């Protein structure tokens, strides 16, 4: 039932591009994106599907929305909820993960629930949270929190467990107390996997944020997506989508950079 121990993100499973930038930083990337934009433009004009607006009109809609401040106010709301929910998930998740990694019995008791909740799509809990918190900021923050909490907890637990026993033995040989062992060996040693979890948690947090906003439809970028979708306003829909993608990439990049810095000493992993 449990998620097993392993190396950061990239051995065994690929759930992201690992450390470093979300997008590969090369000229091919830009050429490819440019080519894609051109193809989009041509195809859209040619095919004339109502759901596929030309790239140019999407850009125009984007400028309009941003200039009029529409997007920015919703974006701000989204980001605030994201920040609070994610922040809580990181602190809570790491704390729980460390506890579970350190105390065998805690892990044993909690693991079934954590695994089950990890496996379940978090959006399913939105109606429950909505019932409890109503139409408020609290719901949104709770959704972001739930989306990222479990991934972070599981990975920081794996992080503690992954610390090579040799380091523990060495520290004991030099007379380390249990407290010293935790702070000076287990905690730093658990960083690679913990940070992988934090990175994955950010990806999930953004997804939870959008999903939650699309459900509640009161504020945020997700709400805008619903609104324009309902109105069949495809240029604006795509425009907001572009903003969402940019936000997702930006948040991801920030966390990856933090991860890279914090675990620079780790020779293994990707």
């Amino acid at each position, binding site marked *: 039932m449990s998620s*097993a121990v392993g190396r950061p993100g990239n051995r065994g499973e690929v759930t992201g591009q690992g450390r470093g930038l979300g997008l590969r930083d090369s000229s*091919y990337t830009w050429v*490819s994106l440019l080519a894609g934009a051109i193809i989009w433009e041509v195809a859209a004009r040619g095919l004339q599907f109502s759901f596929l607006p030309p790239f140019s009109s999407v850009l125009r809609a984007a400028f309009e929305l941003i200039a009029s401040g529409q997007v920015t106010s919703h974006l701000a709301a989204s980001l605030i909820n994201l920040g609070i929910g994610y922040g809580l998930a990181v602190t809570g998740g790491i704390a729980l993960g460390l506890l579970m990694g350190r105390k065998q019995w805690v892990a044993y008791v909690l693991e079934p629930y954590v695994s089950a909740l990890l496996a379940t799509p978090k959006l399913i809990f939105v109606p429950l949270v909505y*019932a409890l918190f109503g139409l408020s900021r609290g719901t949104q923050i709770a959704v972001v929190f739930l989306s990222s909490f479990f991934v972070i907890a599981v990975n920081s637990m794996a992080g503690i467990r992954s610390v090579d026993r040799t380091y523990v033995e060495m520290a004991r040989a030099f007379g380390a107390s249990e407290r010293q062992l935790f702070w000076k060996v287990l905690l730093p040693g658990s960083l690679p996997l913990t940070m992988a979890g934090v990175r994955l948690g950010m990806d999930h947090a953004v997804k939870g944020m959008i999903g939650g906003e699309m459900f509640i439809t009161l504020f945020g970028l997700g709400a805008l997506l619903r609104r324009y979708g309902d109105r069949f306003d495809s240029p604006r829909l795509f425009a907001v989508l572009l903003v969402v993608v940019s936000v997702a990439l930006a948040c991801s990049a920030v966390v990856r950079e933090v991860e890279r810095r914090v675990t620079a000493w780790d020779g293994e992993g990707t």
Partner: protein
Amino acid sequence: MLGRINRRIRWRSQAGLRLLSALLLALVWELLARRLDSLLLPGCVETIAALARLAASSELWQALWLSNQALVLGFLLAALVGVPLGLMMGRWRAADRYLDPYLSILLATPKAALIPIVIMATGLGLISRVLITFAFAVVVITVNARAGLRMINPSWTEMARSYTATEAQLWRKVLVPGALPAIVTGLRLGVARAISGMVSVELLLVAVGIGRMILDFQGTYNAPSLYATVLVVVFEAVLLLEASRWLERRIAPWVSQGAAR
């Protein structure tokens, strides 16, 4: 030393510990619900009763049948598209260079955001649900298939070439078997994403099946049934994922390590 103690109380006490904590959890839940006595938080007993009622009725099973159609079809489509695509990207640098940015973008994008577009294009029927489930699952499957190909020891390819293997033979004898473990991992992750897709589209835009039931119960403040249905989804997710993991272990024993999700 704790290890020794742990080992000794292993089988009996640890199972008992889990059971005890589960009962404790149920008790706390029940007491909390009674205390709060709100319409919104059902008691543990109520919920289990509602679950039993649902399980006995045909409504639940029909809803599951309907919802899972999209899941199965979408996942299969994602596998059929994603695995070859990933393998191709792994094998030919050129394809990878040009397609990778889109893959990365899609990977980072919340797939739920794509739902309105798909709905606009294909309406509210099964096709749109299948397409959305497909969209949720295809990216992880592709990325893992690609990684699987890359992980193959280059010496194997060289060796096969030196024995004059053709491209087709190379694929059949070296590349596909070599990438298989990672492919299976990708499929497991794809299952999780597909479930997410199935749930997302039903809760957000196309109210059918399980999603419809949840929304209905929510609308009528039928909290016990609401919680019960959510539990059903949790069960299904856990079941499908455990089955995937088991399958994965059968095919590739060394791969069950890795950061979660």
